[in-house]
């Protein structure tokens, strides 16, 4: 390393909270660019293990020109804090769930819409069909999509069995305060949920203020909600999305070949992570069943009622999160996919 590039590298290191061009100046001089990445996922999760392997691979392929610096486990605050810090240039990248995505590009939350998807294949089909629209939505808000990392299908976990929308009305069900999607879903079936911050859920389950929550199976275990509930409803409320994004401002400073390397490595590895998450949610469900939690199914009539509620909930979010045209496209794409599938059978 020449003296000059050493100086530059030092400058990059020192500019911890400072201007973006210091932290990321991947140019012909050989200086290093560092992507500061934050997530709520703690060390030891597959999400963080995947990010670390992305870092190693990107470093290798760019001969050390590009790499990551990690803040795992919410060390930079919650997702809203992360978005704020990325805007201020203190961070460049994040692993987000729907909460953060809603702050960044609300229209993308169509993917979280209630009672929309029936299984992972439908999810993949719609994500694929609308990929460019979503990427454009991120770009318009200053972000580049590095990969989807869904949280998975969210189920209702409760202390009384749920088999229909009717049953849900009898529950004291939690809703994440400020989560428009869940609010719309519950409103559509006439349920009055109890809005609470997510950090209050455990205590409130214990005191009986609430007796039902919604979450993906793996998250329910990570949050230790499974310990305080007895039933899992088999009809998922929604498929909770998630994505790894990098600020466009930083991305644009990278030389084109490094941009390509970053995109390619991330897309590949995050796709694998996504598959792994699905398998783990399956495994979590069987672990929970083995521990004595009961799965409750819905009758065909109840399923129809959910579908109807889904349509009305999704319409109620038009204008607030996404335009009518996006909703129409998603529903049409899905209807076509289902029709084709039925025909094949």
């Amino acid at each position, binding site marked *: 390393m020449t003296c000059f590039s050493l100086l530059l590298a030092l400058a990059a290191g020192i500019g911890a909270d400072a201007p973006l061009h210091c932290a990321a100046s991947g140019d012909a001089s050989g200086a290093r660019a560092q992507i500061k990445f934050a997530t709520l996922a703690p060390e030891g999760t597959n999400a963080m293990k995947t990010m670390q392997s992305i870092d190693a691979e990107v470093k290798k392929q760019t001969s050390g020109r590009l790499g990551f610096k990690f803040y795992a486990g919410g060390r930079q605050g919650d997702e809203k804090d992360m978005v704020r810090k990325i805007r201020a240039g203190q961070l460049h990248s994040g692993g987000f769930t729907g909460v953060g995505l809603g702050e960044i590009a609300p229209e993308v939350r169509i993917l979280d819409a209630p009672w929309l998807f029936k299984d992972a294949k439908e999810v993949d089909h719609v994500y694929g069909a609308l990929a460019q629209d979503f990427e454009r939505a991120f770009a318009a808000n200053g972000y580049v999509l590095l990969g989807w990392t869904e949280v998975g299908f969210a189920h209702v976990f409760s202390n009384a069995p749920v088999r229909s929308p009717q049953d849900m009305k009898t529950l004291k069900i939690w809703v994440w305060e400020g989560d428009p999607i869940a609010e719309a879903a519950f409103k559509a079936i006439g349920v009055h949920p109890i809005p609470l911050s*997510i950090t209050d859920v455990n205590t409130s389950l214990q005191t009986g203020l609430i007796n039902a929550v919604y979450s993906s199976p793996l998250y329910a275990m990570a949050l230790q909600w499974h310990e305080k509930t007895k039933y899992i409803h088999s009809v998922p409320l929604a498929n909770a999305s998630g994505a790894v994004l990098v600020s466009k401002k930083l991305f644009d400073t990278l030389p084109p070949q490094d941009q390509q390397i970053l995109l390619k490595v991330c897309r590949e590895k995050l796709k694998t992570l996504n598959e792994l998450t699905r398998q783990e949610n399956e495994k979590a469900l069987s672990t929970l069943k083995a521990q004595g939690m009961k799965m409750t199914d819905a009758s065909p009539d109840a399923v129809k009622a959910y579908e109807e509620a889904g349509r009305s909930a999704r319409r109620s979010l038009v204008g607030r999160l996404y335009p009518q045209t996006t909703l129409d496209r998603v529903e049409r794409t899905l209807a076509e996919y289902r029709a084709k599938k039925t025909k094949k059978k």
Partner: protein
Amino acid sequence: MRAHAIVLLALMTAGCSLKSVALRTTGSLLRTGSAAYHTEADPALAKDAMPGQLKLLESLLQSSPDDPRLLSALAEGYVGYSFLFLEDEAPERAKGLYRRAADYGMRLLGRKKRFRGLDRMRPEELDTALKGAGRGDVPALYWTAYALAGWANLDMNDPEALAALPRAARMMGRVLELDPGFQFGGPDIFFGVYYGVRPRIAGGDPEKSKAHFDAALSRGGGRYLTAGLLCAKYYAATVLDEALFRNLLKSVLEAPADALPEARLANEVAKLKAKKLLEKTDDLF
């Protein structure tokens, strides 16, 4: 050689089987042997010697699968080996060996009826079982809880590990009530890590983490260096307090290694880890 043969013969005619002699000798060896590890000043020597010792214990366990001294030494030994020498460099192996330690710990606890099937109990059943625990159960509960949490922290996506973690916390909570000074304040160190490592939404709580680390640090007068090391790693780094991070690690590095002879090995290893962690400061802040 001949003398040995004579002794052996005498023992056999006295109705002792070779196995039980071996075991009886092992019993006292386990006590002095474990002390020999704790006071070891050369971590490299301990690192090389421990696996052989653990395998020896496992072979003895085969002929005496219910022996509490063996089960206890194995649970503690595999936790110690995983924490001291594997966790940072070979997390995949550490995961497996923490799990093995937890299995031995469960077997040890399972010798008492109230703890049987501990890994399938609902939270309220576990609380009831733990209420009946006494001071004599502390080592078994401590090493089992430590092993379960060690495994879970390295594999936060494994549903089984996730299910084991709240159980570990309940067990350690009971140890904290029964004997907070066990293993130089180990229960407080456990909760310092437990509340420090996870985000708030998943029950993490930096204030609680700090309170537990403070309790552990003041308990040993700072002589048990693992407390300072883990406080830097799991509290100071979590709240992005770089000055505290550096100070804690500096005091670990500057402390005399022989300040606590009965924890010499742990302290020597804490110094090595502190040095490595300090070198990683720029990656963390």
